[in-house]
């Protein structure tokens, strides 16, 4: 029965353990301290079973399509059971050694020995174990303190990996140097839970049990069995950690259901890694990149990897400027991978080159997609045409104000203007010059040197890809292009020509899934998050070193506004890269495909775009957005929040909603998400797409 006053040693954290041991060590009452390894020194972001299943998936992949991961797992279980039963029959504990297990398992699978596969499995399992583990908070400072106290320190574990493997794991985490010896149940097939491992250690190390303290997280094997052997057992009872493990088990169970649950499990692991392996930041933009955009951009990169495996290409071009972050992320991937290059293109330089054969009515319309379009002036800006040469010709066709917006795209004056041979004669040589420089630049970067290549960009209409094909598609060495976009919404063009494929990985409007449309609800934040810090490309010039891009002047009004936002963009990207680093580890452990993650990622984005926190609305609306279509306009993402007066004037309210780049942020002054929900529903009703 409970002797309340003779309480067992249950300590809640490492500082409590240190406080408990300090007087005993100082008084020479303790000269040996042993520590359990797993869940005591090293925590886990994934359970041992999930790590082993991951190894089985990789073994099945290695062996080819005739082997299923489940069958490989079952073979492992069967081999392990045989070895454990054999040890038990020999009077040892119910244990097995990894070095015995792997050859037996391989032989069961292939009906023949295979040393290469054995080596592959051992390497993979150790690699994945290390990815799933982390040094728990407080451990390092405790071990540093203990090592200064002239105490013998032992590591003891009940584990199927042998001590050589565990030493490698501890070395990886820079903990091995703290231990005088490592004892594992797998070495002698004797465990802590039976007390035999303690007896063996005491004999071998000639220890005085009365002066030996053992610390571990398992109340039976680390506390009770140690105490039963006359050792002072300390149970490390970390309640929060036990709760976390419970939640982890629940997430694993739910992940088997697919849908959002696999993504939720994935990102909860990622969150755990961030929690223990990174430091928090006070910078909102860094946190937004890490916690919101990181999930979307990393899922995009995973989708890109999958497509590149299915449809291999020789080279990948990341298109300036919004392909910049994706290239940074791509460069963190392990080889082998196709060569990559950042290519200085913009809608401006591409469209300018496309006028070498004159300007069509369809091309002219492209300039009018901008809400702040200025009619013929916009055409000149978008296509890099000389205003002074065209203005007198425009007057002949009834354009008194060259900068007046053209709302009717079939305007008779416009049709006549474009049909005027003098107008076209003015346009063609300018276009030809743009085109010649662009062609030479493309040759210089090897665009025409590969039969198959990929273009990666944020989206949205595929203008660059469309015009590249239009301008140079007649060349015999024009490559087959696979355009991969974060979001692809081909509103402007539908025909991209032959061998010119486009796909939106996160959002593709052709899939007609209303749910995945969320990036298009606030596309500016994704563009800002991915863009390079430099200015947009407005042309090319010839230099002795070759053709080089001309970037927009740093004095242009939109560029000045961009430069002011560069610090925020850089912080967002730093956050995204931290997320990506952990994302790759968790993906290696889970082997999830982008399709497993996307349902949850859409949910994350829905939360971020439609239901932003007040802090998000406050900071993100400080960013400004520019476009590279030749204009100098700046689109401010910030709008004054709606007030009750706005609701008294419905027309004014509707105009504000329509003009807003981020309409859901207008509601941020209302302290509940209910209006966002109602507004979302109304909006989904109105767009029907």
């Amino acid at each position, binding site marked *: 029965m409970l002797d309340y006053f003779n309480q067992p040693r249950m300590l809640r*954290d490492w500082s409590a353990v240190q406080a408990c041991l300090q007087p005993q060590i100082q008084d020479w009452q303790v000269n040996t301290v042993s520590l359990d390894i797993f869940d005591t020194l090293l925590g886990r972001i994934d359970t041992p079973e999930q790590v082993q299943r991951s190894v089985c998936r990789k073994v099945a992949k290695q062996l080819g399509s005739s082997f299923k991961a489940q069958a490989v797992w079952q073979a492992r279980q069967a081999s392990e059971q045989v070895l454990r039963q054999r040890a038990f029959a020999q009077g040892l504990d119910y244990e097995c050694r990894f070095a015995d297990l792997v050859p037996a398992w391989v032989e069961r699978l292939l009906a023949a020995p295979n040393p290469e596969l054995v080596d592959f499995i051992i390497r993979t399992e150790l690699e994945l174990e290390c990815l799933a583990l982390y040094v728990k908070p407080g451990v390092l400072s405790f071990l540093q303190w203990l090592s200064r106290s002239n105490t013998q320190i032992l590591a003891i574990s009940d584990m199927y990996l042998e001590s050589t493997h565990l030493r490698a794991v501890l070395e990886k985490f820079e903990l091995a140097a703290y231990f005088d010896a490592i004892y594992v149940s797998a070495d002698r097939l004797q465990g802590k839970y039976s007390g035999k491992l303690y007896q063996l250690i005491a004999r071998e190390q000639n220890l005085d049990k009365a002066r030996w303290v053992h610390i571990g997280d398992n109340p039976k094997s680390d506390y009770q069995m140690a105490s039963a052997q006359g050792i002072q057992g300390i149970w490390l009872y970390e309640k929060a950690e036990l709760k976390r493990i419970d939640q982890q088990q629940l997430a694993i169970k739910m992940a088997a259901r697919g849908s959002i649950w696999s993504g939720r499990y994935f990102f909860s692991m990622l969150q755990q890694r961030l929690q223990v392996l990174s430091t928090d930041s006070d910078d909102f933009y860094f946190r937004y990149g890490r916690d919101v955009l990181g999930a979307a951009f990393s899922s995009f990169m995973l989708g890109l990897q999958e497509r590149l495996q299915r449809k291999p290409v020789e080279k990948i071009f990341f298109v300036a400027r919004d392909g910049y972050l994706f290239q940074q992320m791509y460069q963190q991937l392990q080889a082998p991978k196709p060569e990559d290059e950042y290519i200085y293109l913009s809608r401006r330089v591409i469209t300018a080159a496309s006028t070498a054969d004159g300007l069509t009515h369809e091309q002219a319309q492209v300039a009018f997609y901008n809400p702040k379009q200025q009619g013929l002036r916009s055409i000149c800006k978008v296509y890099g045409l000389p205003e002074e040469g065209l203005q007198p010709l425009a007057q002949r066709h009834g354009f008194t104000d060259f900068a007046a917006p053209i709302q009717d795209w079939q305007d008779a004056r416009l049709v006549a203007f474009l049909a005027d041979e003098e107008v076209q004669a003015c346009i063609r040589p300018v276009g030809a010059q743009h085109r010649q420089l662009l062609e030479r630049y493309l040759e210089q970067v090897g665009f025409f040197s590969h039969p198959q290549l990929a273009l990666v960009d944020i989206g949205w209409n595929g203008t660059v890809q469309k015009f590249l094909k239009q301008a140079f598609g007649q060349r015999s060495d024009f490559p087959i292009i696979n355009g991969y976009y974060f979001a692809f919404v081909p509103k402007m063009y539908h025909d991209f020509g032959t061998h010119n494929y486009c796909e939106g990985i996160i959002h593709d409007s052709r899939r007609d899934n209303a749910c995945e449309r969320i990036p298009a609800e606030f596309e500016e934040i994704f563009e800002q998050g991915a863009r390079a810090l430099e200015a947009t490309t407005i042309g090319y010039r010839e230099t002795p070193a070759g053709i080089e891009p001309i970037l927009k002047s740093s004095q242009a009004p939109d560029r000045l506004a961009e430069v002011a936002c560069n610090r925020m963009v850089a912080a967002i990207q730093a956050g995204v890269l931290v997320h990506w680093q952990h994302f790759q580890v968790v993906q290696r452990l889970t082997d999830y495909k982008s399709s497993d993650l996307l349902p949850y990622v859409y949910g994350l984005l829905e*939360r971020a775009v439609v239901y932003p926190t007040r802090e998000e609305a406050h900071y993100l609306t400080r960013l400004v957005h520019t476009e590279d279509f030749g204009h100098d306009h700046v689109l401010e993402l910030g709008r004054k929040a709606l007030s009750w007066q706005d609701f008294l004037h419905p027309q004014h309210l509707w105009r504000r909603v329509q003009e807003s780049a981020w309409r859901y942020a207008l509601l941020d002054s209302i302290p509940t998400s209910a209006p966002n929900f109602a507004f979302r529903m109304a909006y989904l009703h109105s767009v029907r797409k």
Partner: protein
Amino acid sequence: MKQRPLAKQLVINPYRLFVYAQAFRFSSGRGRCFSPGFSALCVWQFLNLSHHLVDRGTIRWWRVRLGKG
């Protein structure tokens, strides 16, 4: 030492996602792809509740205190 939870926004409560998805259900009716599903939500709630009610950590603690291991 209790740490401040980091990257909280990465893990969303499934109830929230369920509510968000209802905006699609009551409008276009298409693409409820981030809804956790009502039955899955019930299972999650049941398991979550049982984890709270049957707190293994506390049970372990009492077992050790009572000397039953």
